[in-house]
């Protein structure tokens, strides 16, 4: 029974996503064409004359009418072809496959770091309101959200790499004298473990630490605040008082009853923070030379690389749909009252 409901839920959600995806396809197509700047001029190179610009325009198919371009684009989409990125000269699908894992790996680790600090901090702050730990929570959260990411990143590089020399050089996903692990998932840490290469695992993880902390610091604030707020609300409710009065142990009250009920808003925040982090960690990518999806999208946007921008937005849209689905399913895991009917 429960199983069928879950399947129905997933199916329903996917169906609901279809119009949004269609909307995204149309809007990004129109928006990219509305960008200032002429890709044909840009890609014709520094010494191009009118004739060579025209040649490039034809080669890119930009001399055709907009509806025609759109139909061609749609046709390609249905065959799974996102087109060719003109700035890198590679298929957009290939670029996304290569860069998405880099961003995801960094984002997951940053989220884990963020959760491992924010949850305990929020819970402690909620159980002891206005104590020193509550104030500490406030300070950490304010600092995390008010320090610009590039500043935190450069600061961490300066202290841990430049001054102390304990962090590896910020050269991207892996130190230059290691080889990439064989590609399975695209996550270097996982791939190196699958290959049984502990050295490479260490090297890949070491490269991840500083950027993950930088990114994680920024997302501490919403998570810790949400944990604290939700816990405060739950802790003051009747069933907690009853649980306490019944003589249940403090951890049981706190984790089994209070936290579970506080989990829903935290999960919601987590979902929002995650999708936000994926696209917006461009600055972290710049400071740590991280070959992620954010800087790819920005570069593509700057040079009006239509196919790349469209591919990026589409990939993000799909990711967002998937993420919402996962969060919805997690809701039902956390709180059985939710989701099974609607």
């Amino acid at each position: 029974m429960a199983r069928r409901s879950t399947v129905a839920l997933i199916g329903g959600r996917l169906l609901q996503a279809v119009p949004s995806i269609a909307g995204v396809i149309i809007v990004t197509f129109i928006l990219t064409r509305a960008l200032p700047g002429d890709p044909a001029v840009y890609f014709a190179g520094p010494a191009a004359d009118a004739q060579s610009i025209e040649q490039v325009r034809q080669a890119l198919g930009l001399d055709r009418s907009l509806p025609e371009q759109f139909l061609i684009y749609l046709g390609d989409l249905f065959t799974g072809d996102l087109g060719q990125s003109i700035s890198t000269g590679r298929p957009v699908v290939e670029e996304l496959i290569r860069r998405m894992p880099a961003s995801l790996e960094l984002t997951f680790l940053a989220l884990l770091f963020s959760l491992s600090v924010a949850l305990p901090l929020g819970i402690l702050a909620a159980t002891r309101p206005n104590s020193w730990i509550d104030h500490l929570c406030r300070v950490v959260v304010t600092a995390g959200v008010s320090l610009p990411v590039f500043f935190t990143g450069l600061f961490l590089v300066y202290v841990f790499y430049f001054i102390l020399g304990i962090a590896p050089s910020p050269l991207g996903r892996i130190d230059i004298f290691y080889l990439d692990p064989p590609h399975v998932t695209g996550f270097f840490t996982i791939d190196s473990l699958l290959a049984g290469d502990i050295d490479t695992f260490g090297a890949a993880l070491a490269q991840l630490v500083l950027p993950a902390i930088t990114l994680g610091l920024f997302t501490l604030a919403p998570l810790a605040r949400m944990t604290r707020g939700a816990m405060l609300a739950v802790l003051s409710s009747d069933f907690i008082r009853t649980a306490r009065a019944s003589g249940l142990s403090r951890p049981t009250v706190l984790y089994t009853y209070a936290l579970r009920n506080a989990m829903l808003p935290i999960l919601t925040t987590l979902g929002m923070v995650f999708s936000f982090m994926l696209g917006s960690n461009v600055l972290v990518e710049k400071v740590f030379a991280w070959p992620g999806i954010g800087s790819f999208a920005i570069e593509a946007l700057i040079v009006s690389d239509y196919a790349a921008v469209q591919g990026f937005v589409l990939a993000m849209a799909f990711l967002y749909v998937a993420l919402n689905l996962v969060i919805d399913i997690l809701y039902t895991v956390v709180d059985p009252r939710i989701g099974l009917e609607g």
Partner: protein
Amino acid sequence: MDRRNFLKLTAYGAGAVAVPMLAPFGAPQAAGRADTLLVVVGSTVNSMDIHRAGTNRPSYAIAVNLYDRLVGFGTKTLADGTEMYDYQNLTPELAESWAFAADGTSVTFKLKPDAVFWDGSPVTAEDVKWSFDRAVSVGGFPTTQMRAGLLEKPEQFTAVDEKTFRIDFLRPSKLTMPDLAVPVPIIINSKVAKANATQDDPWATEYLHRNPAGSGAFMLERWDPGQQVVYKRFDDWKCGPLPGVERVIMREIPSSSTRRALLERGDADISLDLPPKDFAELMASGRYTVAAAPIENSMIAIGLDTTYGPFQDKRVRQAVAYAIPYEQIFKQAAFERGIPMWGGASFEPADISWPQPFPYSTDYDKAKALLAEAGYADGFEVPFAFNLGFAQWSEPMALLVQEGLGKVGIRTAVEKVPGANWRTQVLIEKKWPMHIKNFGGWLNYPDYYAFWVYQDGRLFNSMKYRNETVETVTEEALHLPVEHPDYAPKIKQLIATFFDEVPLIPVFQPYLDVAMQPNVSGYKFYFHRQLDARWLSKA
């Protein structure tokens, strides 16, 4: 997943994540360092093929290091010991020797007999012919650059025998021979290319975009777009002494602060694309080798649209030239990383050197007088654009210019134009009445600069400037040999016109700065501004 387990995972389990994060950082392995050069760059290589449409400037480094040309440039040493290419001295690369026909209508090259491509096959005149045909046929930038040297049609190129190659001139020009040494006319392994050509793609642009096929000093070991390009030495290279390093890693590090930190920590051997301020500081520290060479035939200048209201009057343009705070710009925006292009002695050029200082310096009274004379005593308002891609020096420069012009009543509205739109707005549409520009000509002649920048209708003439003397004299001088008795007078006439009419107000000639560890040697500056790793070595 069971509910209880899930909660435990998030609440308790999350704490466990901190454990691996506290584990000691992996120490970088030192093996392989000695014969490997780590170069950190700020830009990204987007193709292995300089002939492809869309190949960006940083990718020219591939043409330089992975391919050979028929000829190259020699080396000269500047007063401060910096080595740079010698424009006056063409040296053999794939060609062993060359001879001009007695009637001056062609040049014949003898190829090096033992030169081979990476796959071991010999370099033949057929390969040269195919490569030249490709450069003049694919269109876009390579074809334009070839045309600058009057290399326009495949019929001009003949493979006489296996090792002899002839170019027939359309008409003699001093630009033809140096144009063979720029990065564009690379020699490609035509057998490999043809094997990968298709009906739609007869020049194998798709294949060569990803897979270089050359005879150059380095082969491609790896290319991870957006991350790095790794060159590996080709031990059978015949066109020069074997490179001093076995491997060169060009790693892309977008943040200039990180690039500087990598150099200062000793992890990077060479750091490129650093802002002038960082270079000035690294130079002052004395712990690094900083090679600085003035970029030949290049100026940072302020362009004035000569068709725009007040700027139609020569006196207004001169007034602007007198109201630029040159000294301050040079110190505060350029950190003195260049050669001043103001304060020249006379409106009559003493020689034909280019660029040379223009006869203007900051003189607000003179500027006001000129403005009053032209009927703009109360000043006027004008939009002023700069390229956001060079904001590190062009933004402070724009603000200083704004301040200087404000003193004589010219109010400027400063506009930042994003790098990718710059070409469209400034060079194609030519829509900015006042803008900062930095053009550099590959072939080092004043008339070549005039051809691109001062002649009417040219791409880089963003000033919409037209002067009949400039039109005719440039045309006459362009293909004349420098030794010709008419050449110097014509050039002087051109320069005197530029001085007097100032559609373009030069501020300084920029340096190309490169910071290296003291144990790196052999760096040479080239007009193409890319790192030529063939001569580098590491002690």
